[in-house]
């Protein structure tokens, strides 16, 4: 078990810099998710911590030991790959035991530990099989067993679930989370799936173009996005954005654009100067049906009703622009109907047009 410290990490390929002065601390036992769109540098970060990718500048320490120039095998980390990366010519048992055999662990000990991990992951009956005779989910379990058996100081997961179907993904996600609750090994998990990140993480590190855009608990990231990018990236259905004009009126501020008129308490936001334009973000899941005269009610005409099972997403035409909200009472709604929906003022996000940063004051 160990804490991780990355100081001033730089990575460049040739002259092209992909990561610039990144600093990150991960506490012992923490489950951190690197989240971001493809090409944001999250996998590169993970691979640098693993030692599979050379670090152009800066230092990485694992458990207060500087590992920047150590061979991957000497860092005490275990990794689960997106492609599983099993040794195709070896049986499941040989795959799992490979690392221990390289460490010259006695055979009796290896057998005992293989049985133990195989038991934990339900692989007992597959030990003699070759990877090609296993399903994707079983292969992923073997990869996890191979990582677990080494009792590493740090677990690294590189998009381990993206090749699995949705149902299996959910199941393995829960298993990984449970495994972490049991073993409490510090874990870094890379994904581009925001739902996966939200459900599994103690802390999300959201990356964009080689830099950390925001880090915090899933709730912090979801409820208090620091930038428009984070707000847009997190949450499904995606947030509605509208450019609004600011008009101050005593303690309240009105944000307006066409038939959209939203009142927010002025003391919760900074930099809302009268007459400026800001970008307002409204989460579909934080809005619901309202009566036409209600506070912050937005009138529009229904374009589409999407049935999502227990909820429905309603796509609405508001002044010629599409907006969406989510409601449980979607079954009575029909395309073409006029509708009004409203949002609680505490869930309104306001972003600067220039910097994209949230104007909401920190609590």
């Amino acid at each position: 078990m160990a804490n991780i410290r990355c100081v001033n990490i730089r990575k460049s390929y040739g002259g092209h810099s992909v990561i610039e002065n990144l600093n990150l601390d991960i506490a012992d036992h923490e489950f951190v998710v690197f989240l971001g769109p493809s090409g944001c540098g999250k996998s590169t970060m993970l691979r640098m911590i693993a030692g599979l990718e050379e670090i152009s500048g800066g230092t990485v320490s694992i458990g207060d030991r500087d590992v920047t120039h150590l061979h991957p095998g000497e860092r005490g980390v275990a990794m689960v790959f997106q492609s599983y990366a099993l040794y195709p010519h070896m049986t499941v048992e040989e795959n799992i035991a490979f690392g221990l055999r390289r460490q010259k662990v006695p055979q009796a000990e290896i057998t005992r530990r293989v049985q133990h991990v195989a038991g934990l992951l339900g692989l007992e009956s597959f030990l003699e099989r070759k990877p090609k005779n296993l399903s994707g989910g079983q292969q992923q379990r073997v990869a996890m067993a191979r990582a677990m058996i080494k009792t590493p100081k740090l677990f690294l997961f590189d998009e381990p679930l993206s090749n699995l179907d949705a149902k299996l993904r959910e199941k393995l996600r829960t298993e990984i989370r449970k495994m972490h609750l049991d073993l409490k090994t510090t874990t870094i998990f890379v994904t581009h799936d925001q739902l996966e990140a939200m459900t599994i993480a103690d802390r999300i590190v959201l990356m964009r173009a080689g830099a950390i855009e925001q880090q915090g608990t899933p709730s912090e990231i979801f409820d208090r996005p620091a930038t428009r990018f984070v707000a847009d990236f997190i949450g499904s259905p995606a947030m509605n954005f509208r450019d609004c004009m600011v008009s101050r009126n005593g303690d309240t501020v009105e944000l307006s654009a066409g038939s959209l008129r939203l009142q927010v308490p002025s003391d919760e936001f900074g930099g809302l100067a009268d007459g400026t334009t800001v970008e307002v973000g409204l989460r579909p899941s934080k809005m619901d049906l309202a009566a036409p005269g209600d506070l912050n009610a937005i009138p529009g005409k229904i374009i589409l009703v999407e049935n999502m099972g227990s909820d429905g997403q309603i796509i609405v035409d508001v002044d010629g622009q599409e907006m969406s909200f989510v409601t449980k009472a979607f079954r009575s709604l029909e395309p073409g109907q006029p509708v009004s929906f409203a949002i609680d003022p505490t869930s309104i996000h306001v972003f600067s047009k220039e910097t994209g940063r949230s104007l909401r004051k920190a609590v």
Partner: protein
Amino acid sequence: MNNRRFLFWTLTPGFAVLAILALISIAGALYFSVMDRSLRYPDYHFAGLYNYQRLLSDRRFLNALQISATWEIVTVVGSLVVATLLSVLIFETVKSFWLRNLICFAFLAPVLLPRVAAAFIWRFLYSPSLGLINYLASLLGFGPVEFLANPSLALMSVAIVDIWQWGLFFTVIMLKLLETLPKDPIEAAQLDNAKTWEIHAFVTLPMLKAPIISLALVKAVESLRSFDLIYVMTGGGPGTATETLDLYAYQAGINLGGRISYASAMSILLLVLTTIVFTLIWRGIRKWSV
């Protein structure tokens, strides 16, 4: 035209030509092998299995059989060992794309040489009085080594030329095969704390088992046809130290003896023997590689 008929009409001419050519020569050899045909006399008679009987008690034939077997094993194993070691070495040490391609290009050159040309080059290199190798050896204080005239060195000296041609060629192929392997299992092995040689011994080379077996078979067939190389370099000598079966058949049938029937019997026996041996090897490999 449907698919089956298309296949039939496109494949038949090729197979027909092949079959006719192979069948005619085999039938001819079979026919001669049961006669007592010799270039010295115009007439010949049926002799039954006499030629085959004599072969089994011919010490020169048994010697040639042994030389052929040694030649097969040394050249096949030698080429693959050289190719494995060199390709792994280049894979691990040469990271520059251009340098790798340059090396590959250089390694392809020997196999592009006609056998006879390679044989002459090396005969010159091996020469005790003029050769570069003996010059270098003399600088280190070794006397002139009779590479091709010393019966205990001659076969190995010729084998080195064969390995020089084919081992380097296979190095290029194996290097390209290593490059096509997925990176992930190699990285997983690094994380499993495997040393570089362990990664190759336990992960990459076993993953290349099937193509390596194919290379071995190709080389085994190719090594059977080394007549020109050996003929130019040593002519089967000194004595019979490098006389393989095809060389002996040539010497007996065409070059010196003129005993066509005896040589034909030898070729037929060689054909039967290689067919049996290769079938057995092929079966064994198929079972083992599953």
